[in-house]
């Protein structure tokens, strides 16, 4: 459990000692003791040589092992950042904290070797001069590498697509509402702010390909923006209207495969619109299907006293396993307008066959979920009741509950998402 890799001694003035690295220090002592016991198994305890004096230690700083696909970053409003957890570890111990200012958000490079944080500071805590910053951390040392000033950002309860990074880690997209709806585009390699894309009536950024992103609009369309290599201001092209925000809006946590541009937009009633976003083309919206009907249940409407299984949650309600095109949907029984109620089940759907694969009953109602992107995917469910909040790790292929621990925070990120 202890991180023992030494990367930075407290002072270079300390003479190195053979025991500066102490991973097996206690183990060594035990080994010595056992050897002694074996050699003198008939001797009496008081004749054993005294245990050696414990050696002095030098303070050091842990580094994270390279991120695997099961690395998880979990954040709450008051956690001071995202706690890093390895979904495979038996006790799900916290491996570190990516510092995030209150209201800030995180994004990961594809393999999580770089961590990006969009955050806002006031010079005097909650007052004074405002600065909006994109902070870049090394994914293993969690050392702050760079702070790029950005034009602004929206402060909002954690949700997907408010701050995203392109698949290749080259461009960051920061959603803002002031002075009007816009997406700020930052070239992460050049540490340079590109022209912002104004998207009146639309919000969020669903990245695809090296320079594209989609956006959802209040008029029932989805827009697609290609950020020009030239540095010119990008223009959006829009789909035909296909949903009605007044009657059955799309979840903000609708999903896109950043690599292929395939997207699934899900409404409050669980209607799923397959879509495809590609460079230079208006988004193509496919024929919708229903989570409920995929599960063999009647269609679900918008009645405020129409009890049915519905999607809902506080952050990420919908998650995609890219390789298998499986959708994981956080579900609860409720009426319409319960779209933020914690979910009691996760429904696993095959987006290709538009069919339910499995319903997974959660032990603790979850505010949000996440799914790892490897061939042995893990499903994470966060209950977010402050310090009593629970993180559950579930085998996404079988639904088996693997591990859980108390951990605050209801929103999580995984690499390769």
């Amino acid at each position, binding site marked *: 459990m202890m991180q023992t890799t030494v990367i930075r001694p407290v002072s270079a003035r300390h003479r190195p000692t053979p025991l500066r690295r102490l991973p097996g220090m206690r183990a060594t002592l035990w080994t010595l003791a056992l050897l002694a016991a074996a050699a003198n198994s008939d001797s009496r305890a008081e004749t054993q040589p005294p245990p050696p004096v414990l050696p002095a230690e030098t303070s050091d700083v842990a580094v994270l092992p390279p991120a695997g696909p099961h690395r998880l970053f979990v954040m709450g*409003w*008051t956690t001071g950042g995202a706690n890093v957890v390895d979904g495979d570890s038996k006790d799900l111990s916290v491996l570190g904290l990516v510092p995030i200012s*209150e*209201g800030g958000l995180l994004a990961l490079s594809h393999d999580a070797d770089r961590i990006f944080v969009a955050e*806002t500071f*006031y010079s005097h*805590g*909650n*007052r*004074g001069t*405002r600065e909006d910053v994109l902070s870049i951390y090394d994914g293993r040392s969690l050392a702050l590498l760079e702070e790029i000033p950005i034009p602004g950002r*929206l*402060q*909002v*309860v954690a*949700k997907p697509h*408010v701050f995203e990074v392109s698949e290749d880690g080259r461009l960051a997209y920061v959603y803002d*509402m*002031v*002075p*009007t*709806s816009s997406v700020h585009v930052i070239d992460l390699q050049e540490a340079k702010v590109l022209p912002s894309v104004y998207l*009146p*009536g*639309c*919000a*969020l950024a669903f990245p695809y390909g090296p320079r594209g992103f989609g*956006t*959802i*609009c*209040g*008029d029932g369309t989805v827009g697609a923006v290609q950020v020009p290599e030239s540095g010119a201001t990008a223009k959006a092209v829009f789909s035909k209207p296909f949903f009605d*925000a*007044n*009657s*059955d*809006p*799309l*979840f*903000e946590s609708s999903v896109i495969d950043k690599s292929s541009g395939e997207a699934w937009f899900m409404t409050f009633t669980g209607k799923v619109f397959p879509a495809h976003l590609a460079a230079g083309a208006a988004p193509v919206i496919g024929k919708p299907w229903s989570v409920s009907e995929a599960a063999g249940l009647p269609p679900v409407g*918008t*009645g*405020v*006293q129409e009890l049915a299984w519905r999607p809902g949650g*506080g952050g990420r309600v919908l998650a995609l396993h890219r390789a298998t095109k499986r959708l994981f949907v956080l579900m609860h029984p409720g*009426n*319409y*307008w*319960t*779209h*933020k*109620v914690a979910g009691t089940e996760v429904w696993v759907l095959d987006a290709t066959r538009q069919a339910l694969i499995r319903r997974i009953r959660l032990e603790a109602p979850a505010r949000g979920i996440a799914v790892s992107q490897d061939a042995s995917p893990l499903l994470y469910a966060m209950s977010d009741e*402050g310090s009593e909040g629970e993180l559950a790790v579930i085998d996404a292929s079988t639904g088996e509950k693997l591990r859980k621990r108390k951990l605050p925070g209801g929103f999580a990120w995984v690499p390769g998402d």
Partner: protein
Amino acid sequence: MPDSSGDRLTERLLRALARRTSRRSLLTRIGVLLVAAPAFPLLPVSRGFAAPQAAPPAKSPKPMTDFERNAQTKDPARCDYWRHCAIDGVICGCCGGGIHTCPPGADPSPTSWIGTCLNPDDGRSYLIAYRDCCGKSLCTADKSCMCDSTDREMPIYRPSGDNDIIWCFGGSSMAYHCSTAALVGLAN
């Protein structure tokens, strides 16, 4: 069809302000309005209040949400107070403020989103401006005052109906302290 009167009415409000009617330009103006408007205008308010109507609207025959069925009108510092049908945050009444009052030293946001809540005492639906009080840390006085109700609450691409946004635009600081639920007019 869901009960979307809140959004339709919010739109009506905006329409009264905007000079153009295309959806796209209207929504553009929402973005601007969020910052520029000194709170939502008193238009429907004065209409509602200045001349008490002869008769209250007939009790709506449409079904009520669970929140509406359980709402109370006595204690504005509880999550089930009728005006909190779509609040997300800490009730300012638990923090030294009141239903339309910021705690001392907190900044009332000049912007807000608008919900529509049913008053069980008179059977009328009212427009409620969920104005955040800003410039201080999250109020932690009482964790039972942290509420999240979502009647007619909208995603972020309908910002005037979204309760996840920190509604502190136009104030001195975006730091979120607590939320109020000011009555700004009749919804129907």
